[in-house]
């Protein structure tokens, strides 16, 4: 049974320095509130895992939470670079950041393998690319025992903590997600511990088209965090703040303006711009 906790309690209890942590949400339901709480609690030396690091990891990397990033596409969607990520990779600021990079298909297969309690996932991918030269620990050729054909194995991902945002939970901790569901289910099931932030806790989860339910006994902690995916979006609650994604390009380009913004909007409050 999931514990219903306050977000600061959930992070304090479940996220530790040095952990591998995946905050997922494929452009939708990105757990910004949880990421900000991790920044406020000054976690360090995290291995951050996420297909699309997005602004939340730009902020966490710029705040010095991470020593390693496992990812597949690290840009500001439709806008350009993630400047804090680039500054960490290009200039070791504020601390050096080790990269482990994959393709989307590879990351998705790694999560699915983790959720399936398999040591590896299989796909047709990576062949012929230079990604292979930087991923010997996590990507390998594997031969089909029936046809002899060579395909690609990717190491399963089993993060210490998986964190996602969702629209709703009921009072027992059952979680409901609809719209783009991304890898939300996979990451909760693949992780040793999990936190789900939700827009609201309700008496009953009425069935909805396209909705999935994560039963309470498969979830670690549920924390209410209204607007907790902002500036990304929560289908049925609020839209993506495309303007903020565009403004972030300017805010994050410069170390000082980034730090000012973080001081004002993250370190001193529980909200986001």
């Amino acid at each position, binding site marked *: 049974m999931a514990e219903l906790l306050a977000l600061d309690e959930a992070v304090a209890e479940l996220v530790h320095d040095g952990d591998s942590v995946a905050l997922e949400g494929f*452009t939708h339901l990105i757990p910004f509130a949880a990421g900000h709480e991790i920044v406020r609690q000054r976690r360090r030396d995290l291995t951050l895992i996420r297909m699309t690091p997005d602004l939340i990891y730009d902020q966490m990397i710029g705040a010095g939470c991470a020593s390693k990033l496992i990812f*597949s596409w690290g840009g500001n969607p439709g806008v350009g670079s993630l400047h804090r990520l680039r500054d960490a990779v290009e200039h070791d600021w504020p601390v050096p950041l080790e990269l482990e990079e994959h*393709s989307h298909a590879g990351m998705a297969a790694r999560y699915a393998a983790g959720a399936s309690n398999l040591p590896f996932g299989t796909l047709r991918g990576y062949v012929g690319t230079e990604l292979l030269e930087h991923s010997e620990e996590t990507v390998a050729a594997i031969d089909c025992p029936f046809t002899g054909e060579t395909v690609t194995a990717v190491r399963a991902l089993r993060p210490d903590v998986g964190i996602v945002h969702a629209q709703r939970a009921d009072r027992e901790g059952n979680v409901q997600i609809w719209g783009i569901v991304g890898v939300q289910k996979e990451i909760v099931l693949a992780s040793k511990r999990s936190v789900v932030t939700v827009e609201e806790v309700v008496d009953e989860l009425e069935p909805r088209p396209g909705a999935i339910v994560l039963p309470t006994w498969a979830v670690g902690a549920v924390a209410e965090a209204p607007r907790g995916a902002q500036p990304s979006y929560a289908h049925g609650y609020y839209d993506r703040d495309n303007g903020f994604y565009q403004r972030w390009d300017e805010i994050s380009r410069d170390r000082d303006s980034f730090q000012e913004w973080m001081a004002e909007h993250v370190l001193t409050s529980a909200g986001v711009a």
Partner: protein
Amino acid sequence: MSTDMETAVSADEMMTVVAARALTDETVCFVGIGLPSTAANLARLTHAPRTVLLYESGTIGSKPARLPLSIGDGELAETADAVVPVPEIFAYWLQGGRIDVGFLGAAQIDRLGNLNSTVIGDYHRPKVRLPGAGGAPEIAAMAGEVIVIIRQSPRSFVDRLDFLTSVGYGVAPGDRERLGMPGRGPTIVITDLGVLRPDPETRELTLTQIHPGVSVDSARERTGWPLRVSEDLVETEPPTDDELRELRRLRATLEAPA
């Protein structure tokens, strides 16, 4: 059908219109964000209404009225025939061989259509850290064919990629087959200067079409290798009024509030 609007056609508009034209109707198309998404939606809203768009966020058959800024905007889910988990969109739909056309951009391309979207400079000490692979390597491998949209310059059309993120034709003809890639690879590369297609024998990208007002010499200057030019080089039909009007209307939705 050249028009008054033609003089005002930007290089990006020209690229986008030509890319849209490259999509035939009833094509199942896996689209990346940015110019590919704009071009695919332009095709859908003009000559190819039954084109099916899939986005890597898991939306199948999206029919957005406004252009998405990200690959996973709510509009894509709301207008989709189906929304599936991300592992499924890659495993069952892309890898499953269901995609006719993949639409890709990149920071660099070489003469055999291989793409770099990872780094400029040394991998461990990059001059520019780019976003990375995303869905591109498997789209490049698995889609029936690939349309590439990329601005042409000596920095993007390079003799040697700084990093090979996605395979076009590899280092020699036959590499795709050797690597077990079912798709045909990049059959068309659309730039702000013209259109390149792979030579049937050597697979080397060859300029086959040039946009109005662009000279072959300028195309050569903006290519980091000795550019081959087709003997049958044709000039691109300028965008029609309809194409331009629809494209501009679409692009305006990107800026407008929801």
